[in-house]
C-alpha cells in the first residue's frame, strides 16, 4: 500500500510537471548544406536548468515553462543563434546555423556543455582542424589524430593502432554510422580506412560509457558520415604522394534527397610499374637457347564511402550508407627457359617453365539502412539494419613444367591459401524519450547474428610425370561458427538539482554460441557536480562485457588477426572501470580537463606461449583448434590524464599528457608472473598547435613524446646440453655419445621486461589556400619527423666490434619513417 502511494505521488509529480511545460523539439542543421548537426547545444539563455543537445541525428527536445523564452543554440565553429518567442504550445523547429567564419563572428566555446554534461571521458574530435595538421605522406588520418588525445596510446611507429586506457585494439567499439568496423587498417596498419572527407562527426569515449554502448571493454569511437548536401552540388579533389581521393555530394531533389560519394585509391602499384618493367623483365638469348624472366608486383588499397539520405516527411528520414575498402598486395614471377636441339635432323624443344603467383588481400564491407521517426515532440525513434564483413586471405601457387626433347617430363602445380573473416547481420531499435524537463531517457534493443570464419587453409598439389600422377586437395583449419547476440539497454539522464546530475543506466546482453548462452547485466552510472558555471566534478562507473575475442600476434603488423566468439572454453571478456575528473572552462578560449581512472579486465585472451596463428597441421586439423591455442588472464590499468585545449583564436590546439600503468597476468604465460602490457607507456605527451596567419595561410605543429614501450629482450644467454638432437637419457647413460655443440638459450627474465628507447617526433605543416573562380585550392606542405629521430619499429640483437675492438652485443633499433617531406593538393568547390 505504501509502495502504491509513493508511486502515485511520483506519477502525479510527473503529470504535474508535464502540465506546466511545453516542448520545443526539432532539428539543428547547417544552413549551407542542410547537414544535421550532432551535439549542438540548445538551451534557455537565462536558465542553466533548461539545456539539451542534439542527438546523433540532429534531433533535440526541450521542455520549457509556458512563458516568454529565449532559446540559444550554439555549436563549435558556428555562429550562435538566439530565438526569442512566447511559448504557448508545443513547438517544432528546424534551426539553421551558419558557419562562424563566413559571418566573421566570434566562435562560441561549446565546452560549456561539456562542463554541464554528466558524460565524462569524452572527446569530440575536431575534424576541421585535423585536416590542417601535419600528417605522414600528407594523408589525413582520423585514428592518428585520436592517438594525440589523452588516454590514447599509439602502437608501433606509424601504425594506427589505438590503445585506450590500457586496453587492446580489439577493445575499441569503432562504429561507422552505427555499424561495427572490424578492421580499421590500410597499408599494413599505417593508414586507417576512414576517408575524412566523408565524415561529419567523431566522438571518442574512454570511460563512463552510457548504457547504449556495449560489446567492447575500453572505448567507443562513434564515427558519423556526412548525409550529403541538401542544397547544392559540392565536391573536393585531393592529390597526395601515395593516394588521391574525390568527394562529391549534393541534392538529388533539393531539400528532400541528397547523396555523397567519396572514393580514395593509392597508386604505389601504378608508380612502381615502369620500374618493375625495366628491372623485372629480362630476356637472355644465346645460339639455341632463350631465358625469359617476367616479374610483376604491387600493392594498392581503395575505399568507397557512399550515402543516400531521403526526407520522407518532416518526421521521417531514411538513410542508406555504404563503405567498401580493400587492400591487395601481389607478386607474380615467371621464368621460361627454352633450348632447341637438332637430333637426327629433327628439331626438338626442351623447356622449363617456373611460375609463381602470390597475393594477399583484406577487405571490409559495411552497409546500413536507417529510418528516423519522431513520433511526438518528445519521442524519437531510430531503426537500423546493418551488415558488416571483414575477410582476409593470402595464397601462393607455383607451376613447374618441363619438356625434354619434345616430351612432357614434369608438370607440377603446388598451391596453398589461407582465409579468415567475420560477418555480422544486425537489427537495432533506439528510442530517445523526453518525458519531463529533468529526464532524458534512452532505451533500445539490438540483435546481431555473427558468422565467424576463424581460419581455413587449403593445400593442394597436382604432380604429373611420365610414369605417375599424384594429387592432393586438403583443407584444414578451424570450423566456421555462428553466434547470436541480443542486447537491451535503458538510460536516464537525470537533473536532480541544478548542481547535481546523473546518468544512470543498465545494459543486458545475451550471447549464444554452440549450446552455450551467456547472460550479462552491465550497470553504468556517471555523475556531475557543478561547482560553478565554469567548473564541474565528474565520476563514473561502467561494467563492460565483450563476447568477441581477437587473436593477435603482437609481434607483426599484418592483418592476420582473427575475430572469434566467446565459447564455453574461452569465456567472454569483461571489465569494470571507475573514473573521476574535473572539467574547467578557464576562459572562453581555454578548457582544462583532469581525469583519473582505474580499470580491471578479466578473461583477456592471448596465444599460449609458443603458439601462433600458424600452428602445426595436426592441431589445425582438430576442430576449433584456436581454443586450444589461447589462454585467458587478467589485466589492470590505471593513471591520470591532463588535457588543456584552446578552441578559438588565431592559435588553436591542445596539450595532452597521460601518466599510466597497464599490465597483464596469465597463468600460462611468463610462469604466471604479472608483466607489463606491450603498450604500457608511462608518459605520453602530445602538443598540437594550429596557427592561422591569415585567412589563406595556416601552420600546424605536432610534437609527441612517449616513454619507451616494453619488449622482451634477452638479459643473458646460457648453454643447455639438451639441444635439438638431445634425448632424455643422454645425461645418465655413460655409453651414449654426446653429439652437441654450443646452443645458446636466451634468458628473458620476464616478458616485456625491457624498455625500448622513448618515442618522440616533431611534425610541421603549412597550408596555403586561395580562392579560385570555381572554388578554393589548398597546397599542403608537411615534414614528418623533422629532427629525424629513430623511433623503434623493429629491434634485434646484433654483435660487432665495439670501441676497443672486442665483440660487443648491441640492440639495433630499426625505424621505417625517418624525416619525410610531403605535399598534397586539394580543390574544394
Amino acid at each position, binding site marked *: 500500500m505504501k509502495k502504491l502511494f509513493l508511486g502515485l505521488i511520483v506519477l502525479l509529480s510527473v503529470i504535474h510537471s508535464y502540465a506546466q511545460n511545453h516542448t520545443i523539439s526539432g532539428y539543428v542543421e547547417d544552413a549551407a548544406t542542410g547537414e544535421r548537426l550532432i551535439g549542438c547545444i540548445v538551451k534557455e539563455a537565462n536558465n542553466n536548468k533548461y539545456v539539451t543537445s542534439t542527438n546523433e541525428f540532429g534531433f533535440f527536445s526541450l521542455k520549457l515553462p509556458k512563458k516568454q523564452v529565449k532559446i540559444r543554440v550554439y555549436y563549435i565553429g558556428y555562429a550562435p543563434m538566439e530565438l526569442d518567442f512566447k511559448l504557448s504550445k508545443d513547438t517544432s523547429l528546424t534551426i539553421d546555423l551558419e558557419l562562424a567564419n563566413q559571418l566573421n563572428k566570434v566562435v562560441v566555446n561549446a565546452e560549456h556543455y561539456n562542463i554541464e554534461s554528466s558524460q565524462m571521458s569524452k572527446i569530440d574530435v575536431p575534424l576541421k582542424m585535423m585536416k590542417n595538421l601535419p600528417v605522414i605522406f600528407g594523408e589525413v588520418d582520423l585514428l592518428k589524430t585520436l592517438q594525440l588525445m589523452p588516454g590514447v596510446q599509439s602502437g608501433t611507429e606509424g601504425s594506427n593502432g589505438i590503445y585506450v586506457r590500457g586496453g587492446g585494439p580489439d577493445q575499441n567499439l569503432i562504429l561507422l554510422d552505427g555499424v561495427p568496423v572490424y578492421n580499421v587498417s590500410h597499408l599494413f596498419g599505417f593508414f586507417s580506412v576512414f576517408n575524412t572527407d566523408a565524415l561529419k562527426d567523431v566522438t571518442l569515449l574512454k570511460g563512463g560509457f552510457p548504457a547504449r554502448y556495449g560489446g567492447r571493454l575500453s572505448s567507443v569511437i562513434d564515427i558519423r558520415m556526412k548525409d550529403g548536401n541538401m542544397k547544392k552540388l559540392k565536391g573536393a579533389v585531393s592529390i597526395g604522394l601515395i593516394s588521391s581521393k574525390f568527394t562529391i555530394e549534393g541534392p538529388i531533389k533539393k531539400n528532400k534527397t541528397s547523396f555523397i560519394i567519396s572514393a580514395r585509391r593509392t597508386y604505389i602499384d601504378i608508380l612502381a610499374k615502369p620500374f618493375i618493367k625495366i628491372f623485372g623483365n629480362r630476356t637472355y638469348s644465346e645460339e639455341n637457347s632463350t631465358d625469359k624472366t617476367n616479374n610483376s608486383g604491387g600493392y594498392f588499397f581503395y575505399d568507397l564511402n557512399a550515402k543516400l539520405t531521403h526526407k520522407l516527411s518532416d518526421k521521417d528520414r531514411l538513410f542508406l550508407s555504404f563503405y567498401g575498402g580493400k587492400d591487395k598486395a601481389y607478386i607474380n614471377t615467371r621464368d621460361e627457359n627454352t633450348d632447341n636441339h637438332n637430333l637426327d635432323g629433327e628439331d626438338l624443344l626442351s623447356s622449363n617453365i617456373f611460375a609463381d603467383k602470390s597475393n594477399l588481400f583484406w577487405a571490409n564491407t559495411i552497409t546500413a539502412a536507417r529510418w528516423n521517426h519522431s513520433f511526438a515532440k518528445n519521442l524519437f525513434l531510430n531503426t537500423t539494419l546493418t551488415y558488416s564483413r571483414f575477410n582476409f586471405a593470402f595464397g601462393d601457387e607455383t607451376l613447374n613444367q618441363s619438356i625434354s626433347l619434345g616430351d612432357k617430363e614434369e608438370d607440377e602445380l603446388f598451391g596453398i591459401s589461407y582465409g579468415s573473416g567475420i560477418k555480422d547481420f544486425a537489427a537495432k531499435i533506439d528510442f530517445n524519450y523526453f518525458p519531463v524537463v529533468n529526464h532524458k531517457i534512452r532505451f533500445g534493443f539490438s540483435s546481431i547474428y555473427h558468422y565467424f570464419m576463424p581460419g581455413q587453409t587449403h593445400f593442394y598439389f597436382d604432380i604429373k610425370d611420365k610414369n605417375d600422377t599424384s594429387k592432393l586437395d586438403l583443407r584444414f583449419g578451424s570450423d566456421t561458427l555462428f553466434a547470436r547476440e541480443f542486447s537491451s539497454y535503458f538510460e536516464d539522464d537525470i537533473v536532480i538539482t541544478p548542481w547535481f546530475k546523473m546518468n544512470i543506466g543498465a545494459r543486458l546482453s545475451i550471447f549464444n554460441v554452440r549450446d552455450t548462452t551467456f547472460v550479462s547485466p552491465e550497470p553504468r552510472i556517471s555523475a556531475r557536480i557543478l561547482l560553478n558555471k565554469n567548473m564541474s566534478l565528474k565520476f563514473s562507473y561502467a561494467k563492460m562485457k565483450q563476447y568477441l575475442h581477437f587473436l593477435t*600476434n603482437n609481434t607483426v603488423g599484418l592483418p592476420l588477426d582473427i575475430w572469434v566468439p566467446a565459447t564455453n572454453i574461452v569465456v567472454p571478456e569483461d571489465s569494470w572501470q571507475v573514473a573521476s575528473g574535473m572539467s574547467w572552462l578557464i576562459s572562453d578560449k581555454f578548457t582544462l580537463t583532469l581525469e583519473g581512472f582505474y580499470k580491471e579486465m578479466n578473461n583477456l585472451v592471448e596465444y599460449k606461449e*609458443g603458439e601462433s596463428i600458424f600452428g602445426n597441421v595436426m592441431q589445425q586439423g582438430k576442430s576449433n583448434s584456436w581454443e586450444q591455442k589461447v589462454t585467458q588472464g587478467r589485466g589492470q590499468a590505471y593513471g591520470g590524464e591532463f588535457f588543456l585545449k584552446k578552441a578559438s583564436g588565431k592559435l588553436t590546439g591542445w596539450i595532452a599528457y597521460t601518466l599510466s600503468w597497464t599490465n597483464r597476468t596469465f597463468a600460462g604465460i611468463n610462469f604466471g608472473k604479472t608483466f607489463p602490457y606491450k603498450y604500457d607507456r608511462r608518459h605520453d605527451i602530445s602538443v598540437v598547435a594550429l596557427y592561422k596567419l591569415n585567412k589563406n595561410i595556416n601552420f600546424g605543429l605536432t610534437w609527441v613524446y612517449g616513454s619507451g614501450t616494453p619488449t622482451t629482450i*634477452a638479459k643473458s*644467454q*646460457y648453454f643447455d646440453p639438451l639441444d635439438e638432437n638431445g634425448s632424455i*637419457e643422454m645425461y645418465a647413460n655413460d655409453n651414449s655419445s*654426446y653429439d652437441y655443440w*654450443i646452443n645458446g638459450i636466451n634468458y628473458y627474465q620476464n616478458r616485456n621486461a625491457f624498455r625500448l628507447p622513448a618515442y618522440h617526433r616533431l611534425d610541421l605543416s603549412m597550408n596555403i589556400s586561395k580562392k579560385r573562380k570555381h572554388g578554393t585550392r589548398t597546397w599542403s606542405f608537411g615534414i614528418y619527423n623533422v629532427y629525424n629521430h629513430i623511433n623503434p619499429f623493429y629491434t634485434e640483437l646484433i654483435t660487432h666490434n665495439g670501441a676497443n675492438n672486442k665483440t*660487443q652485443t648491441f640492440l639495433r633499433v630499426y625505424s621505417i619513417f*625517418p624525416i619525410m617531406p610531403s605535399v598534397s593538393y586539394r580543390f574544394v568547390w
Partner: protein
Amino acid sequence: MKKNIILILGVILFITACHKDYKIYDKNNFKSQLVIHSLAAPDSILRVFVTKSAVPEQLDTNCFVTNATVSLYEDDNFIENLVFFDTAYVEENSYYDYMQKEKFLTKYYKSNYHLKRNHSYSIKIKAEGKEADANFSFPQISAKVEVDKNGFTCDTNQNSKNFYIFFGQGTMYFKLKTTKHNGHYMLRLLCNAWDIDQNKLPENYTDVPDSAYYKTAMNISFIDNSEENGASSLNSLYATYPFLTFKDRHSSYVFTDLSDNNTINITANMNFQGYKRNGEPIYIKYQLFEISDKIYKYYSSLDKYWDSDGNPFVEPVNVYSNVEGGFGFVGAYNVTEDSIKIDIKANRNKR
C-alpha cells in the same frame, strides 16, 4: 656536381636514419650466473653439466666451469663430490656435410654413486664465488603398460658382406594404465639398428657410429582409439581429455596426462628400416618414461623455446628452470622398457 653531392648525402641520410645501435650490455660488468643441467635415471650414476651464463650472442666454449665443487646429497646427507670429466673433441669431415669441423663438447661432473628410487636428492654447486643448488626426486611408478604385437613382417636385402638392410612393418597395441592423477609420460619406440640415411652400407664395423644404434628412424603412426579424434597419421598422439601432446625434435616421444585409473589404448603402426650386422636379430624396443611435472615443464618450455626462436609470429619464451641461484634444470625420471624380437628369417628375401 653539387646536385649529385646533395643527392648522395640525402640518400645516406635516409639510409642511416633507418637504424641505430644501442649498447645495452656491459660485458666488463656483466655478472654471469651458474647454470646446472642434469637428468637422473634410477640405478644410474649422475652427470651434471656446470656452465655459466654470458652476454647474449656471445656464448662460447668458455662457458664451461671446470673448477666447481659439485656436491651430491641424498635425503640431506652428503654423499660425495662429483669428479670433472673432459672428453671434448673436434671431428673433422663430420656426418653433417656442411660443417667441415664439428665440436663435440663433453664436459661434465660425474658421480660414482648410483642413484636410487624413493630418495630425494640435491646438488649444491660452488664455483667462481657463486653458489647454486637444485633438488630432485624420482617420480613414483604409477603407470603400467601392456603391449600386444600384431603381424610384424620384415624383408631384407643382402648388399654387403658384413651387413644387411631390412624393411619392416607392423602394429603394436599399447594399453597404458595409471593410478596417479596428472602424471606425465612419454612413449618411445626404437629399433636396434643403424640408420640408413647415408644410403650406403658401411664395409667395416669401424665405419658405424655407435650413436646410430637404437636411433633408427621409424615412421610411426599412433592411432588413438577414441571415436572423437579418429586416426592420425603423424608421429604424435591425440587422445581424449585429459591429455597433453608433445612431440620433441626427435619425433619419437609422446607425452600424455592420465588421470586416476585412466586407460588409454594406443595403436602404433610402424614402418622401420635400417641395417644390421649379419646374423644379428632385430628388436623393437618400447620405452615408457614417467617424468615429473617439473621435467614436463622443462621439456615443454624448451620445445616452445625452439619453436619461437626467430619466429616473428611468436613472443619469446623462457625455458623453465628449477635451479636456485642460477639457471638450468635438474630432474629425475623412471623408465620401463621391453623389446620384441622380430622374426626375420621367415620373411627374408620376400622383397
